[in-house]
């Protein structure tokens, strides 16, 4: 019997013209990156190729891309619609204007007047204006990004001028390039490693002695991580996390804009110690300036390789806070939606592409060269109030000198403001502060003498995380800040697990009341902390809980 055939094929038919366009774009991407574009994990990179060219993702091109990559269209669609920086435009829909103006409305920019900017910069024919989560430039708040051009201390007139003059590219920072870094003794350490002047075991021990901990937020001891991964079967991979999305945090960008090769060398030493064969660097899409630097300097490094290099891939995020979570980042590098995985298994055992993976925050490996050169004791001897090491505080808010301040671990907020930040802004008095970005909770000024480090803030219901300190003054309200943070978590929740997806939405509603239903909010917070899969949902209630604990008069 003859099989019944459909008169037209199922699903969207691929337009031959769209297919031709996609093929040309992929070819262009292949020439630029030298990587075969049809592997499954290249999906996000390929979506970027289309998005960069068109300013959005036309449905016809998605169908063509799906066919070309031999993926179901649904899979391409789910990835394309997961990330903030992609916009799918279906047949018959009007594409967005070519230029997007993103007004950061996360905590530091909100304090500096993001809402007035949002109202003041009107959308027009050639551009649209959208609120955006933290763009990692809190020291120059409020920040507005025109295309890829970040406008520091933005005013309505400055932004309008940039739009009118089509200044949409990110300016290049001045940094230590390959030649300069090599001249200053750069890459000697990794050469010595390969020449047998160092032993893996010695360096791993040295890192353990220095007390260096993961600086992405969780604070896992770096040396122990190398040891754990090295004990797993080969091939082992490394993934470097530069998806710095925690509101208030901008240290990774600050380091990259100054000394990118110090990061590369630390990364290579860590990879060598853990016996890693291939490295993936994941950079958030907001950091267009850093991307240009990394692309250029990685090419320079590969061209004049001081040692035989393992394959190093630079991957680009697409606007998703959740991809800063280690397993979500791995999913994103694999070209999928950034949704955290259930653990166990841990990424050190089964991580990227199912292989044991050494995952580090960028700053953690940035310190490696200096610690090895100056010795573990040098690093461990820094610190105050019984704490060890140095921390890079990203300070923003109501202080005279916001910015990255490298200070001893265990410093108190009062000392940090006095010694590093030039004091509070004139006319502002310290009222409250966020010790660890959006998820670290909010402390009152009476707790400004608590040492800031891993483990010291837990008794107060807070944590230091990525050391993003946002200072609030008597002109601000802690409860208003908490609402801003909870809205951020609601927007950025990936939607995988129920406690976080539903909990953040319910919490926003409860917190927008003039008087909070505190017993209900407590119960909701407990459920989110107990049952969420990853740190986002587990930490999201922190601002609300600390406001109820320390600022009860604001919400009752």
């Amino acid at each position, binding site marked *: 019997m003859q099989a019944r055939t459909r008169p037209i094929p199922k699903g969207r038919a691929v337009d031959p013209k769209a297919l031709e366009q996609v093929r040309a774009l992929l070819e262009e991407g292949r020439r630029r990156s030298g990587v075969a574009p049809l592997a499954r994990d290249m999906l996000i990179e390929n979506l970027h190729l289309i998005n960069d060219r068109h300013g959005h993702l036309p449905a016809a091109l998605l169908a063509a891309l799906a066919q070309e990559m031999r993926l179901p269209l649904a899979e391409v669609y789910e990835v394309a619609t997961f990330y903030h920086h992609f916009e799918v435009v279906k047949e018959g829909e009007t594409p967005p204007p070519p230029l997007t103006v993103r007004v950061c409305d996360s905590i530091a920019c909100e304090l500096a007047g993001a809402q007035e900017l949002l109202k003041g910069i009107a959308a027009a024919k050639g551009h649209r204006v959208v609120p955006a989560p933290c763009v990692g430039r809190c020291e120059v708040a409020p920040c507005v990004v025109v295309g890829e051009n970040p406008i520091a201390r933005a005013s309505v007139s400055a932004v309008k001028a940039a739009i009118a003059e089509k200044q949409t590219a990110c300016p290049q920072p001045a940094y230590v390039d390959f030649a300069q870094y090599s001249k200053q003794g750069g890459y000697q350490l990794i050469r010595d490693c390969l020449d047998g002047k160092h032993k893996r075991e010695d360096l791993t021990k040295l890192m353990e002695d220095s007390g260096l901990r993961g600086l992405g937020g969780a604070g896992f001891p770096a040396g122990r991580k190398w040891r754990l991964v090295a004990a797993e079967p080969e091939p082992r991979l490394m993934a470097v996390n530069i998806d710095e999305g925690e509101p208030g945090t901008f240290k990774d960008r600050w380091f990259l804009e100054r000394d990118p090769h110090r990061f590369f060398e630390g990364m290579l030493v860590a990879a060598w110690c853990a016996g890693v064969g291939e490295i993936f660097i994941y950079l958030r899409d907001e950091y267009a300036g850093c991307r240009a630097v990394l692309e250029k300097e990685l090419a320079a490094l590969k061209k004049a390789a001081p040692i035989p290099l393992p394959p190093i891939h630079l991957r680009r995020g697409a606007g998703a806070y959740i991809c800063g979570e280690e397993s979500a980042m791995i999913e994103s590098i694999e070209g999928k939606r950034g949704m955290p995985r*259930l653990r*166990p298994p841990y990424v050190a055992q089964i991580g990227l592409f199912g292989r044991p993976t050494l995952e580090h925050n960028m700053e953690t490996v940035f310190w490696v060269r200096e610690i090895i050169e100056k010795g573990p004791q040098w690093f461990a001897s820094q610190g105050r109030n019984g704490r060890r090491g140095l921390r890079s505080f990203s300070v923003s808010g109501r202080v005279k000198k916001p910015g990255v301040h490298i200070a001893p671990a265990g410093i108190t907020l009062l000392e940090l403001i006095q010694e590093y930040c030039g004091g509070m802004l004139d006319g502002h008095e310290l009222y409250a502060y966020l010790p660890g970005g959006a998820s670290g909770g909010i402390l009152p000024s009476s707790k400004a003498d608590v040492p800031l480090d891993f483990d010291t803030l837990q008794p107060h219901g807070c944590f230091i995380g990525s050391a993003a300190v946002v200072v609030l003054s008597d002109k601000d309200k802690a409860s208003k800040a908490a609402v801003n943070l909870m809205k951020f978590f609601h927007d950025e929740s990936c939607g*995988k*697990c*129920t*406690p976080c997806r539903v909990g953040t939405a319910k919490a926003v509603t409860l917190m927008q009341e003039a008087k909070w239903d505190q017993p209900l909010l407590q119960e909701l917070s407990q459920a989110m902390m107990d*049952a*969420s*899969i990853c740190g986002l949902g587990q930490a999201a209630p922190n601002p609300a809980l600390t406001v109820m604990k320390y600022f009860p008069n604001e919400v009752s």
Partner: protein
Amino acid sequence: MERASDQQVAMMPIEFKLNGQTVVGRPDEKIIETAKKHGVAIPHLCHGGNQRSDGNCRACVVEIKGERWLRRRWCSSC
């Protein structure tokens, strides 16, 4: 006496405490299944039959005493 092989060890029953009562489960069994055998019903949506356990609704999460603080709460059906 001969030592048990790794394979044999992997198949050995596991004794643990469930709500204060000592129970014995098999290594290839989920916590939710062992609990059911001992008359403790853990609420769940995705587990059972040919369903894949996704661990997303989090209704079946249980607390494990003595486990590291980071993973004190586990999905009992995964």
